[in-house]
């Protein structure tokens, strides 16, 4: 087992209970509205916290990183598919990196 494989197993071990246990224990009970709200907002909060400010150092060059981020923001805002956003961001980074001697 490599370190990554152990990590994967551990990730599965913490993911499975929140998927499986409610079936047996929660049944029909509703979670308190506050907890439901909190769970609802976690994905948005974590994406925000992950993106900024670390996106600025993504490639080690602030200009090419920022260019990639801006391209991704524009494509994402207009609801382009995830792969278009991904490729657009990489292309913008690649092109800008050329000009700033990356």
């Amino acid at each position, binding site marked *: 087992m*490599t370190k990554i494989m152990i990590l994967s197993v551990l990730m599965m071990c913490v993911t499975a209970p929140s998927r499986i*246990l409610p079936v047996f224990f929660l049944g029909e009970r509703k979670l308190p509205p506050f907890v439901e709200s909190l769970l609802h907002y976690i994905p*948005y909060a974590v994406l925000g916290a992950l993106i900024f400010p670390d*996106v600025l150092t993504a*490639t080690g060059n602030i200009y090419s990183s920022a260019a990639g981020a801006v391209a991704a*923001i524009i494509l994402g*805002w207009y*609801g382009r598919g995830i792969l278009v956003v991904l490729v657009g961001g990489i292309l913008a980074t690649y092109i800008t990196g050329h000009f700033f001697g*990356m």
Partner: protein
Amino acid sequence: MDAAKEITNVNEAHIAKGFAYGLRTGTPIAVGYIPSAVACGILCKTAGLTAFESIFMSLIVFAGASQFVALNLLIIGSSMPEIVLATAVLNMRHIMMSSSIARRLVPGIGALKKSWICFELTDESFSIASMQKEPLLAPEFMFGLNIVGHCTWVIGTALGFYGTSVLPQNVQDSMGIALYALFIGLLLPSVRESRPAMIVAATGMALSALIKWTPCFADMNRGIAIMTATGLAALVGAVVFPLGKTEAR
């Protein structure tokens, strides 16, 4: 329990059943997964995983968002306990989905079958299952629905991983941005639709930046910093925009 009482009166037409019907219903999910799965493979490669490790992770974890976050934390050098903690927190939303689906399963399914159905449940298969017009869901239907997505996720990861290897080196160097582009692509369409979500995401960004740039927190581990910012931002959302009052989603 209501479902159990109802079943005696409900005729067969009110149950979504059949493995093949599940497969057909799940096909749109599979198509939708391909880009993210390919992206996952690309990121695994960027994060330095081997092909086997990438496929292994997609197979047994099968949780897009937490895999992306885990890869990100690996890249920025977080420790294993932090990554596991982040995964646990991020997947707590499954509690709501599993309990909601559990109520719609045909009563009297064995514990093992129930567990397997919920183990494979994702945001997408949950959404599709919830939208079925039949009030009850048979286990075979759920197996079919879930397995299409699961297989596509694993195959897509492999495609993304091997696809990356054929790219020229200078393009591969630009791929550090890939993870962030992916996060942006996931986040923006939803925050465009919902002001509370946008404010929560912006709060997360602000807190994350604040922790990173405040001198006394500068030594704080980045993974812990991100989890702290996440918790506080979600708390702000839950306090300022409680669900059901401001937004029905």
